[in-house]
């Protein structure tokens, strides 16, 4: 009976997310389709950077989402620690691999963009280094989930780590303002309005929305998979106990 109570909320979540998921996935596909076509074919080439500027439309939304997902993960970890909400635990755990993928994508596309622009694949500047540290934090978070066998204990320990690592997020955001580095400062979200021409800003924003909705879709299905995995686990334990 206690297992039924434990899944009371997740059950409602499963029913709801099952209905919502196809729509969210559809919106992600449409947004990414429009965004990709706009940014790769319609948006003008940069007068200095030429066609390579199109890397921006892949790179910048990935970097934004890397930070967004970590922030989300830390918030979910807070909820999991304070209210012991089972869904928050699942949400934080399943967000990590997706966030790590965004971070990796931002690093790789940034490196590909850096080669023609800065003449090097990698520089140890503040922004690049702190994003690399963000990737390491994601990996550490995932490692600690795997290292501790008991799920409830692993969840609490991982949540504490996620909250401690959140210190890195403002450091990444402001690294380009605090240190004089090669990476350009913020040009979209800044005081005095965006410093980027609308013909490039619009596809960029659509791509950012597409990435975020894509995260939602992937995260929903990852959460569903995790809940099912836990159900199977508790069923197996129940069967073993006879």
């Amino acid at each position: 009976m206690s297992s039924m109570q434990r899944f009371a909320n997740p059950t409602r979540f499963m029913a709801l997310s099952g209905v919502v998921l196809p729509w969210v996935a559809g919106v992600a596909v449409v947004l990414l389709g429009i965004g990709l076509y706009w940014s790769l074919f319609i948006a003008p080439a940069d007068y200095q950077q030429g066609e390579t500027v199109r890397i921006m439309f892949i790179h910048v939304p990935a970097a934004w989402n890397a930070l967004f997902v970590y922030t989300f993960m830390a918030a979910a970890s807070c909820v999991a620690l304070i209210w012991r909400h089972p869904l928050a635990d699942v949400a934080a755990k399943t967000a990590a691999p997706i966030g790590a993928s965004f971070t990796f994508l931002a690093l790789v596309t940034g490196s590909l963009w850096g080669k023609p622009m800065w003449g090097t694949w990698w520089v140890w500047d503040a922004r690049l280094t702190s994003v690399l540290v963000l990737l390491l934090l994601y990996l550490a978070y995932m490692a600690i989930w795997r290292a501790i066998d008991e799920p409830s204990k692993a969840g609490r320990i991982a949540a504490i780590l996620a909250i401690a690592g959140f210190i890195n997020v403002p450091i990444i955001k402001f690294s380009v303002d605090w240190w004089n580095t090669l990476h350009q400062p913020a040009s979209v979200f800044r005081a005095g309005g965006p410093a980027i021409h609308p013909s490039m800003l619009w596809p960029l924003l659509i791509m950012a929305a597409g990435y975020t909705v894509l995260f939602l879709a992937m995260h929903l299905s990852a959460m569903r998979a995790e809940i099912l995995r836990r159900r199977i686990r508790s069923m197996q334990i129940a069967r073993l106990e006879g």
Partner: protein
Amino acid sequence: MKAVLAIIRRDMTLAVRQGGGAGTAIGFFLIVVSLLPLGIGPDLNLLTRIAPGALWVALLLAVLLSAERIFQPDYEDGSLEVLLASPVPLEIVALAKALAHWLTTGLPLTLALPFLGILLNIDIADIGPIMLAALLGTPALSLIAAFGTALTMGVRRGGLLVSLLVLPLYVPALIFGVVLSSGAMRSGPGYAPPALILAAITLGAVVLAPIGAAAAIRAHMK
């Protein structure tokens, strides 16, 4: 206060008598520093240039090497449960244990720095800032290490995991420690800005790391 002093004295005694205390940390530090010229060649100018960074990386590794003994033995033999049951708040216990770790690791390493710095051909004028940086920065290293080891108590291959958890959190202390050590501040803004930031990092760690460590211990003991 008496209990805190007792914890510090106990941990220091254990560190000294079991080995793995100051001696091992300094030995490790010495080996890393002496491997460096073997690895990159004996060019003294090059060594002078990279010495502050190399010393700091060796410092981080030496602190990390001995970090496991902060909580792991007490967790294994059950004395952590006694500490948990004591009237002293767990946060204060964690702070005391981190302080004991610093007294047996960070402080001796700081005192060893000038000699190792001379081995790496550091300008005598830079020795003062390097020691100041170590003195201001190493308490933060011990505190963050205490937090990291509290997270990984009793975990398989915890030693490897703790470096993955802790090293990202060491980055700010490393950056400003090296800035203060490198002598780049001699001209220009002076030593005050990096020294103040380093002190701020340590003060922040004094407040936050024991809270995090205590939360992790409670999660483990439940």
